[in-house]
């Protein structure tokens, strides 16, 4: 009985090309998280921000409620770390690639930001594809939460440990007091196959074996998320090619 068999899994859905004044846009919905990302680029850049050999990447994260805080800076920093190597920056020197991440609904409980981060990474990738920004590979991300199960619940691991994958806010709040560790993992894929780990944020109380196991589970999930992205892209292209039908 592997971890993935028994863990509940929210289905993700994506739509693209719905914003008109930007080069690319994407919406990613998973669990109760909903993120919209717009990408414009390569476009003109300020002289001050111009880089002579590569494109400048500007990422802005806007929260669902309240004012921008250090939390958005943290998310922006992590998203940048993922995409700085995935986007082929040296193809467009002295230009700007502007990414705006709008959190429509974070889907996280009060103390976490894992769903926001993983959904934002997925939405950003879809938007970059939609905008036609050159990228080296595919990126997909997921959130995995380990928690202590109550006596009556079936647990997938020895020692009463339950797993949630890309959960909704209600599911998070239900187990909030029993959370053991939270893992946000992003993988790079090429040709639909996992290439390497690009980002991981693990918080809580966990052992070396647990975190490595989380990486393995995340790889399988990211592969399936990659399939979801493929389907969304195929649908998007079919929509755009409607005019070809005679």
């Amino acid at each position, binding site marked *: 009985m592997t971890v993935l068999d028994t863990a509940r899994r929210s289905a993700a859905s994506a739509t693209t090309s719905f914003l008109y004044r930007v080069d690319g846009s994407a919406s990613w919905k998973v669990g109760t998280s909903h993120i919209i990302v717009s990408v414009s680029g390569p476009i003109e850049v300020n002289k001050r921000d111009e880089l002579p050999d590569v494109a400048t990447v500007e990422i802005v994260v806007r929260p669902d409620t309240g004012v921008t*805080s*250090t939390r958005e*800076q943290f998310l*922006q920093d992590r998203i940048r770390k993922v995409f700085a190597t995935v986007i082929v920056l040296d193809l467009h020197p002295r230009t700007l690639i502007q990414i705006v991440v709008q959190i429509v609904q974070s889907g996280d409980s*009060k103390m976490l930001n894992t769903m926001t981060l993983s959904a934002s990474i997925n939405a950003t990738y879809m938007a970059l594809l939609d905008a036609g920004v050159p990228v080296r590979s595919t990126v997909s991300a997921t959130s995995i939460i380990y928690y202590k199960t109550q006596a009556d619940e079936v647990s997938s691991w020895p020692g009463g440990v339950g797993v949630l994958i890309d959960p909704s806010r209600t599911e998070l709040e239900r187990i909030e007091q029993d959370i053991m560790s939270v893992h946000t993992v992003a993988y790079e894929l090429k040709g639909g196959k996992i290439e*390497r780990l690009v980002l991981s*944020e693990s918080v809580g*109380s966990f*052992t070396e074996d647990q975190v*490595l196991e989380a990486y393995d589970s995340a790889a399988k999930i990211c592969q399936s998320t990659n399939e979801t992205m493929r389907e969304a892209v195929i649908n998007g292209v079919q929509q755009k090619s409607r005019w070809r039908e005679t």
Partner: protein
Amino acid sequence: MSELQPFAETLSSSPQLFARLLPTVYFDKYISLDPPIRPSLRSPTQFRPCRINTSALPNTFGSSVVRMGECIAVCGITGYIIDSSEAGPSALYTNVDIVGRTGPPQSELMSVSEWMYETALAANLFDPTQLKIEDTAQTLVLQAQVQLLSQMYSGDVAWAALLAALAVTRIPKPVLADDEETLTADFATEPVVRFSTSETRKLELNYDSLPWCINFGVMEGTGLVLADLEGRVEEASVQGSITIVTSAGESSIQNLSLSAGNSVISKDHIRQCIALAKRRAAELDSILKTQIHNGNGL
């Protein structure tokens, strides 16, 4: 006829200029040696020397000054009293700043600040109920102000300063005033709480071995692991990074942040870093304990 002058004179520049202009090439010159060595003359798995001083600042519940290599962080712990109903999820608020900085904080500083708050919250460093003020509906919350004395954003040094300061924090005994009252959240009145100037009680932490923060870099290509990255040259040359918050020994890990950059980070890299991190955590525990024991602490 004078001898032909050379077409262009050879340029000579200092190593520092070389390091500034071409940090990756400069770094490569050192690391390609056999055995590899870093520009700071540390071996790949060698950590920076660390010095900790505690309780040096007046008017704080606890304080520390931590120096690792060229990075220095100062942490002061103070507190304020709030109504228990207004208390948020955390009994500890952290703020990281750079000494002498003006204007809005740079995004990297904000990122470090947020990371510290989230890590402190998740690490559950102490039981907040020990801060509740008896016979009142009020509680104490602690505020940790960390000041970085160097231009480098070193989250691990800032975190070390926070831990060291908390390890020596003493909460003054609350004294209920008999001449002044305050309004509580549900519109009752309560005596105002003041702090005793003479009696203090140690803040009990949930850890015997503290959860220190240790950072590593993983090089592109060779996959060489470098412990304790410091400085512009190393940061520009080594893109893959792993940051671990853990205590020594068999205990669990509190935080593991990984960003591959251009490098390929394997499970062996992660295992190696965790092992090195635990050893370093034990070393830092010992440095702090010696410091406190030698009377500098209290």
